[in-house]
């Protein structure tokens, strides 16, 4: 099978707050293979964005602090790199797109300026600066010219019509969907191995969402990207991803191939989440929510963090953090219902 691209092992992340220490991530494990489209789902505050932002090390420290764990990318532990090495690494290997396409573009500059900056930064960052190199290196003017060419190609790639003229426009002249395409182009400038998409379609209308998801899928095929797609929308996962991990309150609680997860969800939380989505078959009064609310991260419940809301809660749930139990080779559940008793079917 494909080689391992990214492996997150037992990642713990804390934030210092006025009310004490918030344990935002409490042991996240995640493995991405090259060519995966990997979904990370969960509700507000479950730590999915924090997991994703830990990879490029974009979390401000302090107040954040990684207390345990490692992030291995292509055999290198990212947490051991210096800030300078990390910057070079981001330029060469990572692309990130965020939820809100409005705030991530600078309204004062045209898309051309912003894209050229991205291209130059990502292509030329860290190139050696000795005399020989300077002699063969193109002049700044030539570099910008080349970068413009590349920027237009990128806009073309992400499906912006008349890229060569639209590139001179300001962000406000683009619609929401088009701005998101610009941001995708920017993320792709350095030909990254991994594209982290943090809720890329949440701010968009469904018809536009469908366009963007189709674009991401086509880019995966065309460029051989690996994508980590973060979303709260189970529909988006079902439509786009091949593998998925469900997070709850700082931990991955279930990971599985997509079809398996929807056909045969094992964790009570996953089951509740899938049932809570209104769809065709659910008739009046038939929608089942999950009672209660997500736990306070400053004082998380002991043991399995889902136990106060869980319909199947047992004694060990209150005291011990469940470890992985394998359903199939690729389907892992972190729940006390499973290791001991496989016959407790739900």
């Amino acid at each position: 099978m494909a080689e391992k691209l990214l492996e997150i092992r037992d990642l713990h992340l804390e934030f210092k707050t006025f009310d004490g220490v918030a344990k935002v991530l409490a042991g996240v494990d995640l493995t991405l293979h090259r060519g995966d489209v990997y979904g990370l789902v969960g509700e507000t505050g479950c730590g999915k964005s924090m997991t994703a932002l830990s990879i490029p090390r974009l979390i401000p420290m302090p107040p954040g602090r990684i207390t345990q764990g490692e992030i291995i990318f292509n055999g290198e532990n990212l947490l051991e790199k210096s800030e300078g090495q990390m910057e070079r690494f981001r330029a060469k290997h990572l692309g990130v797109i965020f939820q809100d396409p409005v705030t991530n573009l600078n309204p004062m500059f045209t898309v051309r300026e912003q894209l050229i900056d991205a291209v130059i930064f990502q292509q030329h960052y860290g190139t050696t600066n000795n005399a020989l190199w300077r002699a063969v290196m193109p002049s700044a003017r030539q570099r910008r010219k080349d970068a413009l060419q590349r920027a237009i190609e990128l806009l073309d790639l992400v499906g912006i019509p008349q890229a060569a003229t639209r590139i001179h426009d300001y962000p406000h002249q683009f619609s929401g969907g088009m701005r998101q395409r610009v941001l995708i182009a920017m993320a792709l400038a350095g030909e990254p191995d991994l594209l982290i998409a943090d809720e890329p379609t949440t701010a968009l209308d469904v018809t536009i969402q469908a366009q963007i998801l189709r674009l991401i899928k086509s880019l995966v095929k065309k460029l051989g990207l690996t994508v980590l797609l973060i979303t709260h929308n189970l529909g988006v996962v079902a439509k786009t991803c091949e593998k998925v991990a469900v997070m709850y309150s700082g931990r991955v609680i279930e990971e599985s191939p997509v079809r398996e997860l929807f056909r045969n969800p094992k964790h009570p939380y996953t089951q509740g989440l899938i049932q809570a989505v209104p769809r065709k078959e659910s008739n009046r009064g038939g929608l089942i929510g999950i009672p209660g609310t997500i736990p306070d991260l400053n004082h998380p419940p002991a043991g399995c963090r889902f136990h106060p809301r869980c319909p199947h809660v047992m004694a060990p749930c209150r005291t011990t953090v469940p470890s992985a139990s394998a359903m199939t080779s690729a389907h892992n559940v972190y729940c006390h219902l499973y290791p001991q008793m496989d016959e407790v079917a739900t």
Partner: protein
Amino acid sequence: MKDAKSKQPILDVKNLKMYFPIKGGLLNRKIDDFKAVDDVSFSIQRGKTFGLVGESGSGKTTVGKCILRLVEPTSGQIIFDGADLTRLNAGQMRDQRTHMQMIYQAPAASLNRRMTIGQIIGEALWLHERLNARDRRKRVLELLDIVGLKSEHYYRYPHEFSGGQQQRVGIARALAVQPQLLILDEPTSALDVSVQAQILNLLQQLQDEFDLTYLFISHDLGVVRYMCDEIGLLYLGKLVEVADSETIFEQPKHPYTQALISAIPDPDPDITREEIILTGDIHTKVSDIGCPFAPRCHAAKVPACDTALPPLVNTNENHFVACHLHLADEDAPQKEAYA
């Protein structure tokens, strides 16, 4: 559910128009209108839920605000329980608002964070009913119980609540004056799915208990299907299709409805529907004449698409569609206009 008698609808919106002026030119005079809502007509039977669906910018919230006259509509009639709201003066309108209340999208932003929950809900009782402090407190506690909050929440402030609980407070406030019609403007779009399910169930339970009528404004078709009896689709301020919920989802006729339904990502990887991917977005330029959806339409075009505005006509048993394709291909005898 309640029987749908042929009595008169509780709310009847006729030819509602809301034009916002576009100013410009040398003297900053009005040079054009932005037609946020353009000739929208629909009616809701008592005890039913009418869903108003559309993408951002389609004018669905503006329709809701016009009905409460929070913005003054340009023209049209809003007949609530037999009375035309557009003819009332401010004082009379204020009295009418005890019968109709609105619940907003962002629960945190619609609650005053300097007031306790008791004050927030009690304020409506003071303003509209002049209840004294003791009666107010009693009613507020009842209301908290109805929406699933506890009496100990009475003295708390909005920031102490989660999003779902804040929305419950918003619902309690709206119910305080015992309205008949609730306008729900994207009541769950800020909430997580597990909490959304709680709130949707609460709304249905309240509807059965108090015989409420809902105007449910949303962009989430899954939620609308779950909640609504009848659905109207708005596109650029115009209704393009109106029918009961089942019909809209099973036999959508307007190309926009078809595309919208096909674009909902289904939480089931085995459903492989044919996906219609629309080009462009809602702001794609429209000619003044012609169908507003024509520039993005994926269906085969007829010449009339670019030259004439398709009227909203009854194509079948109360299934109204505004599309030239359905004007042309069927030789149905009854083609009366909607409402």
